[in-house]
């Protein structure tokens, strides 16, 4: 049995894979009873394996999650070995994450994948933000405290050397990268996107003078958090993490684009920003207030807009005839509207 990158559910239930898995789990034998692909994951694919593990440290497990790359690739996405190292570092720092089990770096037979414990709960943004009419204050406080644990991971870090040297001006670097994509879009399509130009300039005029640097998740939002009833159970998708300004994560979580069914609740559609910061500040020993996040909410909106442009570019010039990619490009006006709301409030 031989599988290659993009292996499907059938590959993961084969006897050959079970035999390969046994030494990874330090087990005498592994049987894989079923495999189900989890929803989502355009860049990575996640499968739940129902397993019978004989002997070894993981023998109590009946379900494990296998995470591997999807056939499509995004340059900013880290490979599985780096994501696994990030997951391990997060677990050690006390962040709520699935327990890392093992890493396979990839070979001629099997693509690279990582294994982690299966965590029960919901991730769907629409479901979570509709689950309660009242703000979910305790949950959001816990989400804030959990993020503070991520930001307690500092450089230098012996197992995260692959992240490279921390940037001296992380936000300047981010904005420069966004500008490059926007200018490429304008040159290719002739579509000027003046709101993006306005937002770039607004961000440049208000650049933070000095920036702390810590590990930032870079996709910390409803949708990448497992919530079990009202308890934060796990933080997923570490593929975009890197060194940066911690406020970037707080702004991303509170950006209008990630509020799903509850645009009125600024902290992820779940509660208010003050609730998030109460949990964050208590765990981090910081004293941020909601107004501190305005800049980072605008930056988050711009980032989403740049991602939407990149998706549309995959359709326009990359030859990927995906309707989903094409329609993502048509989301730009919504994001631009929200940028104008955020920046317009700051005009004296």
């Amino acid at each position: 049995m031989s599988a290659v990158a993009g292996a499907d559910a059938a590959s993961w239930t084969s006897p050959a894979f079970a035999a390969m898995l046994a030494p990874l789990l330090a087990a005498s034998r592994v049987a894989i009873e079923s495999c189900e692909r989890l929803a989502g994951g355009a860049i990575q694919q996640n499968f739940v394996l129902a397993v019978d593990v004989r002997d070894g440290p993981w023998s109590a497990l009946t379900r494990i999650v296998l995470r591997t790359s999807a056939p499509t690739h995004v340059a900013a996405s880290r490979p599985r070995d780096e994501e696994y190292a990030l997951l391990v570092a997060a677990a050690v720092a006390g962040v709520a994450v699935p327990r890392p089990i093992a890493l396979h770096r990839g070979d001629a037979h099997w693509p690279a994948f990582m294994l982690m414990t299966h965590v029960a709960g919901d991730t769907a943004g629409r479901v979570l933000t509709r689950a309660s009419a009242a703000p979910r204050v305790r949950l959001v406080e816990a989400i804030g405290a959990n993020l503070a644990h991520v930001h307690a991971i500092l450089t230098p870090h012996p197992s995260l050397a692959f992240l490279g040297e921390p940037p001296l001006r992380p936000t300047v670097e981010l904005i420069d990268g966004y500008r490059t994509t926007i200018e490429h879009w304008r040159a290719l399509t002739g579509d000027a996107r003046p709101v993006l130009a306005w937002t770039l300039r607004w961000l440049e005029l208000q650049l933070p003078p000095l920036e702390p640097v810590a590990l930032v998740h870079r996709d910390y939002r409803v949708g990448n958090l497992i919530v079990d009833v009202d308890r934060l159970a796990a933080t997923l998708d570490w593929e975009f993490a890197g060194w940066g300004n911690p406020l970037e994560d707080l702004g991303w979580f509170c950006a209008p684009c990630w509020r799903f069914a509850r645009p009125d609740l600024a902290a992820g559609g779940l509660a208010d920003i003050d609730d998030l910061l109460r949990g964050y500040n208590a765990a981090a020993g910081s004293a941020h207030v909601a107004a501190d996040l305005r800049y980072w909410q605008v930056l988050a909106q711009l980032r989403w807009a740049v991602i939407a442009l990149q998706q549309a570019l995959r359709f326009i010039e990359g030859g990927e005839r995906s309707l989903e990619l094409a329609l993502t490009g048509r989301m730009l006006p919504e994001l631009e509207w929200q940028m104008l709301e955020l920046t317009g409030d700051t005009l004296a």
Partner: protein
Amino acid sequence: MPDHPDARALLDAARDALVALIGDTDRRHHYTLRMVASAMAIARREIDAPAHTGSDALLWQRVRICDTDDVAAQKSLHTALVAETRARLAVSNPKFLAGR
């Protein structure tokens, strides 16, 4: 002079037929079918949208040269950007504008 039914009518009829089919198809295909219907609706509205006047390029130029210390000019530019975005939303996602 185009033949009739024209492009608008054909798109409307095709989208209506598609939407009518969604309820009878496997749920696994609903997301894709809704995307197709959405793309057709955008294309339909774009046909009826006012012709492109190059206002985005003019606004882009205004952003570049606008005095950042001139609050009145900034507000005027912001108002123009809102109007431009409202026009784009009327094509891409008019539901988003409801209540705004």
